């Protein structure tokens, strides 16, 4: 709570403190016995509102970004609704930015279809639980220097515990739909989570090792400072951190069922996978949970590899920390969209093989690498360079070797031609 006390004491710029001051000002208006409850409620409402809106705009951003990647424009028609009761007509399409609200109205007004043979209870519970679980993970993310909803000592553990439960709901959805495609999707979701839970955690463990803490706040704080006043001390700018970040990205893509690991939903194979029998608002809930999960994982990635809420360069330190966090979040999600716009989907056996034959060994090696890094913390000068080289060699060598083995026998081919 020292950070909080510091913030309230006013040793930080006003913008940095503004959200807390706003909350406290509101809380103090209420009678004392309810204050603790309102205090937490405000946090919850703030997360819901901010990330709800963020989700809404992520959907449109994804569609527009994908559109641009594909040389289209994306949705650009939905603007200000035209109510005839208004005396004037404000006609602007707002670049289609109100598309998510139109989508929401559509999803809410659509008929909710439940298959006759479905397991009605589970079919209903799945979308509810998936949103719940995906929202739980937001509790431990440090959105700013002082903005951390719950400070937990074992925050990372909590994060993974809450996050892994979402796959369970995908299974529930797939199994309860009584649809063969959904069932296959449920199996795939289980296989995927069994394969990728481990690499995801293993890719994070080096950071825990080096930072010496499971707390997200501590990890973010540990990445403060700059070398030569320009290179931030983010974990991603170390050899093991970079490798860990890449592994984390792959595992996060798999964990959040994004392309190229969108196997449960594989629309070209399983129609819509576990979502085949969902419509209307239940479908929207799944959609929402998927984006929440993506946002949370991106947030985690930012916290543990990209310096959390820290500013990238010292002279931009005046920008409030939560703005940096959001900026990085937008960047991460943009990257995920970019990947989705480029790559094709793996097959389920290749997916598991990638996890067990490539990512898990590499993550284990990277753990060793991090151990080496933290043991050689006091190497300076020329030794610093040696440390870098050794550390880089520890990951690059196995990467090349394992990569070669993984892709053995496969290469672009040359072809012969017949002229007659």
């Amino acid at each position: 709570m020292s950070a909080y006390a510091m913030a309230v004491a006013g040793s930080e710029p006003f913008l940095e403190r503004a959200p807390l001051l706003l909350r406290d000002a509101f809380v103090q208006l209420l009678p004392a016995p309810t204050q603790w409850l309102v205090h937490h409620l405000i946090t919850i409402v703030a997360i819901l509102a901010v990330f709800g809106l963020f989700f809404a705009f992520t959907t449109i951003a994804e569609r527009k970004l994908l559109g641009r990647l594909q040389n289209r424009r994306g949705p650009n028609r939905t603007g200000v609704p035209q109510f005839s009761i208004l005396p004037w007509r404000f006609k602007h399409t707002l670049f289609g930015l109100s598309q998510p609200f139109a989508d929401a109205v559509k999803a809410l007004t659509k008929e909710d279809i439940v298959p006759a043979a479905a397991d009605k209870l589970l079919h209903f519970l799945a979308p509810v639980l998936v949103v719940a679980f995906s929202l739980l993970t937001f509790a431990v993310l440090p959105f700013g220097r002082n903005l951390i909803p719950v400070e937990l000592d074992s925050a990372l553990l909590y994060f993974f515990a809450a996050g892994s439960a979402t796959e369970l709901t995908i299974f529930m959805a797939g199994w309860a739909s009584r649809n063969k495609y959904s069932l296959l999707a449920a199996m795939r979701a289980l296989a995927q989570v069994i394969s990728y839970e481990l690499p995801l955690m293993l890719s994070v463990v080096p950071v825990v090792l080096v930072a010496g803490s499971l707390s997200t706040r501590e990890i973010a704080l540990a990445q403060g400072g700059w070398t030569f006043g320009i290179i931030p001390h983010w974990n991603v700018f170390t050899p093991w951190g970079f490798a860990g970040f890449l592994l984390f990205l792959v595992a996060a893509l798999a964990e959040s069922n994004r392309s190229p690991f969108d196997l449960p939903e594989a629309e070209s194979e399983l129609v819509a996978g576990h979502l085949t029998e969902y419509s209307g608002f239940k479908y929207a809930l799944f959609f929402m949970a998927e984006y929440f999960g993506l946002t949370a994982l991106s947030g985690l990635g930012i916290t543990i590899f990209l310096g959390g809420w820290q500013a990238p360069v010292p002279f931009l330190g005046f920008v409030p920390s939560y703005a940096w966090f959001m900026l990085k979040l937008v960047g991460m999600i943009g990257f995920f969209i970019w990947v989705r716009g480029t790559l094709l989907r793996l097959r389920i056996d290749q997916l598991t093989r990638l996890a067990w034959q490539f990512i898990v060994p590499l993550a284990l090696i990277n753990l060793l690498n991090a151990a080496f890094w933290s043991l050689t913390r006091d190497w300076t000068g020329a030794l610093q360079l040696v440390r870098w080289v050794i550390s880089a060699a520890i990951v690059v060598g196995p990467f090349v070797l394992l990569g070669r083995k993984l892709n053995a026998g496969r290469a672009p081919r040359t072809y012969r031609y017949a002229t007659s």
Partner: protein
Amino acid sequence: MSPAAPTQAPAPFGAPSGPTVRTVTDAFHGDLLEVSMGPQHPSTHGVFRMDVTLDGEVIVKLKPVFGYLHRNHEKIAENTSYLASMPYTDRLDYLCSMSTNWAYALAVEKLAGQAVPDRAQYLRIILAELTRIVNHACLVGFLFNDLGTSFTPLLYAFREREKIIDLFEALSGSRMMCNYQRFGGCRIDPSPEWLAAASRLVDNFPRFLDEYERMLTGNEILLARTQGVGRLKAANAINAGITGPVLRAAGVNYDLRKVDAYGFYSRFDFRVPLGEHGDTYDRYMMRILEMRESVKILQQAFRDLPTGPIMDPKAKIRGFRPKAGEAYGRLESPKGELGFYLLSDGTPNPYRYRVRPPSLINLTLLEEMCLGHTVADAVVILGSIDIVLGEVDR
């Protein structure tokens, strides 16, 4: 020996291509999953259906089911005049109406013994090769969609296809249902501006192909998903009548443009790319390489295009009645050997009109290619065969 009971088991029913396959009898297997993929499935390229039996995700049995788009095209054609069937041939393979038109015109010209002026022959080759590019670009795009991209390669391909389709529209009046070829020539003479625009487009096309290949051909996921998947052995492919790029991917050098040298193809210098493994990757690469060869043909055609009439002056548009007889005309459509068998009894309507659809016959070995692979692979194998349901079901 009775023909009904061949004692010696013939070769074509070859071994499946995947790793391990359980033998499935028709008896009930409790742990097998029967999935009817289609007719409303995103990746069956229309209203095609595969009744798939799965062991986990591995296919142990696959039965293609046809006919959802059947409209008895042949019967309709037998009840109308020769010319009135021409627009219907557009609807067979609706992605490549120009070459389908040509195949029909070729068969009718063979039936009636009609000549085609030089300029029309060149125009036909130009349009057929543009169609080949359109088809292959579409196919590759759709194949990548089946492979799970979020439409990006498809839309890049469609962007380029759009430019060619615009040319078709400017020339024939319609983007896809061109109805352009006539018995003894072509319908409309392209303007010099059209030819210049087409030539410019063709010259720019390799740039697009380069970018496309840079984006995808070396992609590790593509290699993993396609190499070694859905292998086809040359001997079985020949026996099953598989033609076109699918056959050539298996290493058989059989391209009707070279074999029959119909039209003026013998005047052109081009090569036929041949695969080695006959897997999905080879089939994909065949399309890319054929597009490159098509560009070469087109450049030669634009260079050498003669002037002159586009219609045989002796050709009859109204009251066309070929002499009694029969003819089978075939050409290398982008999907394979497209043939028209016509039987005339001297009346204005064909007595027998038959389409030899490459899409349908290329599906003959679909089950054997898919056995032992997963559902995801089946979708990709089907995509790499390149079918159009308008032609499969007719």
